[in-house]
């Protein structure tokens, strides 16, 4: 996944533009007011910055557990966790934004409360408990069945009640971040669309934030849609643009430290791949199906060809799903591993820890910039492959037209 740093021009242009995404339109300042308002509004919904207290005695110093740290960062959680620090009173404090927990169990019905009620797993609330690594060890739970951060039902005496099934439909940090990214995207796109409707940028030169998005939109149209979809490209362009910008904004927002890893979540990519699969299926024609169920090969080879072709329908969206998921997950894991390296070596020997940190930080910055490139690249590849597969689904129709030319 780190292969794509060829200095080719369109990508470099996009690459240079990326800081603008975080401060759109800093030149004329027309947009910066509303951007601020939106960000303030989005974050003030969850603005109770809680400095929760760790009520228990400090345990003997543990060795640094890189696995727990890395998976704590990349997995879904019931809160946005920024940092932990030891206060003057010697207790550990966590800076988090709590999120609502919504639970349903057939016996107890719905319950809804903020995740801060759990006090990071230290307290139980209304018969539910948040699993921590200590609790999994203490209750001798199967670590393959129960994960850290999962909500389970507990009995009156605080023991786990495995008989009660809990369905967790909470607004976890992935969900909340996706909604924030989506509202940001919709807001930017509607603002641009309104300007084009007024005629700005149609006959005249585009202004402000239009400059940022117009090259990307024309890139998707000219380099993704037109070569693969031929004369039908206008029908599929809205879908391709939507999927491109939705993946892109989620990738980029996920790179901000402290945020969740939305595109590195297999449920998210699975849904995107499923939608692409449905679009591919609906744009297929009878030539496509004929090639699958009665391929033009000798009869003896048909029993091998037909199952492979049928499997091929499903492996395409499956590959789309795995590609985006594994790319984003791997990128986050590499960054976190390089940071963890400092602490692993620092736990063994302080001097080595200090000595390795400049190199580690330099590598993290390098990988981080590659991740920004990968964020664009994966959005491009997802849109590109979707366009290629849609094109294949109705390809043979204009195959003969090409032959005449």
């Amino acid at each position: 996944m780190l292969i794509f740093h060829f200095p080719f021009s369109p990508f470099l242009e996009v690459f240079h533009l990326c800081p603008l995404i975080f401060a759109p339109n800093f030149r004329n300042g027309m947009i910066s007011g509303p951007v601020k308002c939106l960000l303030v509004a989005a974050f003030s919904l969850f603005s109770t910055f809680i400095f929760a207290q760790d009520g228990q005695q400090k345990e003997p110093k543990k060795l640094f557990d890189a696995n727990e740290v890395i998976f704590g960062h990349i997995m879904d959680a019931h809160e946005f966790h920024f940092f932990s620090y030891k206060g003057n009173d010697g207790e550990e404090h966590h800076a988090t934004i709590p999120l609502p927990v919504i639970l349903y169990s057939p016996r107890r019905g719905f319950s809804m409360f903020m995740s801060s009620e759990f006090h990071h797993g230290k307290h139980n609330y209304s018969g539910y408990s948040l699993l921590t690594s200590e609790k999994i060890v203490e209750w001798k739970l199967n670590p393959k069945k129960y994960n850290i951060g999962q909500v389970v039902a507990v009995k009156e005496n605080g023991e786990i009640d495995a008989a009660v099934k809990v369905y967790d439909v909470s607004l976890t940090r992935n969900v909340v971040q996706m909604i924030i990214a989506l509202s940001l995207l919709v807001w930017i796109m509607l603002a641009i669309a309104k300007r084009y409707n007024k005629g700005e940028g149609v006959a005249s030169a585009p202004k402000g934030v239009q400059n940022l998005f117009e090259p990307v939109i024309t890139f998707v149209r000219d380099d993704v849609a037109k070569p693969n979809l031929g004369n039908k490209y206008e029908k599929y362009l809205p879908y391709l643009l939507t999927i491109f910008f939705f993946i892109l904004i989620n990738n980029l927002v996920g790179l901000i430290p402290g945020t969740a890893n939305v595109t590195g979540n297999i449920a998210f990519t699975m849904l995107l791949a499923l939608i692409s699969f449905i679009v591919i299926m609906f744009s297929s024609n009878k030539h496509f199906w004929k090639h699958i169920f009665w391929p033009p090969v000798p009869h003896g080879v048909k029993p091998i060809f037909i199952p492979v072709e049928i499997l091929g329908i499903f492996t395409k969206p499956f590959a789309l799903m795995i590609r985006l998921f594994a790319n984003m997950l791997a990128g986050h894991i590499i960054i976190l591993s390089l940071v963890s390296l400092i602490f692993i070596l620092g736990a063994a020997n302080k001097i080595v820890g200090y000595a390795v940190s400049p190199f580690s930080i330099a590598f993290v910055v390098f990988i981080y910039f590659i991740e920004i490139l990968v964020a664009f690249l994966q959005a491009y590849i997802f849109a590109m492959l979707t366009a290629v597969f849609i094109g294949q689904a109705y390809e043979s129709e204009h195959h003969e037209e090409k032959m005449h030319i």
Partner: protein
Amino acid sequence: MYLFLLDAVAVAGGAIGAGLGACGAGIGIGQIGKGAVEAIARQPEALNDIRANMILTAALVEGTALFAIVIGFLAIGK
């Protein structure tokens, strides 16, 4: 003891599998890069077409390495 050994073998298997997958993808993407650079050197005017096809093929090859990584994770987890 045997249980411990079994876990170690699972972890080693996952890691070796992911490494072998990365080897294959590395060779494949190296070939793609070589081919693309040679083609661009011969025909600089076809840069855009070559680049688009190169990225597409590289993405397809890279997919196999990512499958290997995911399967490696599964081997460690199970």
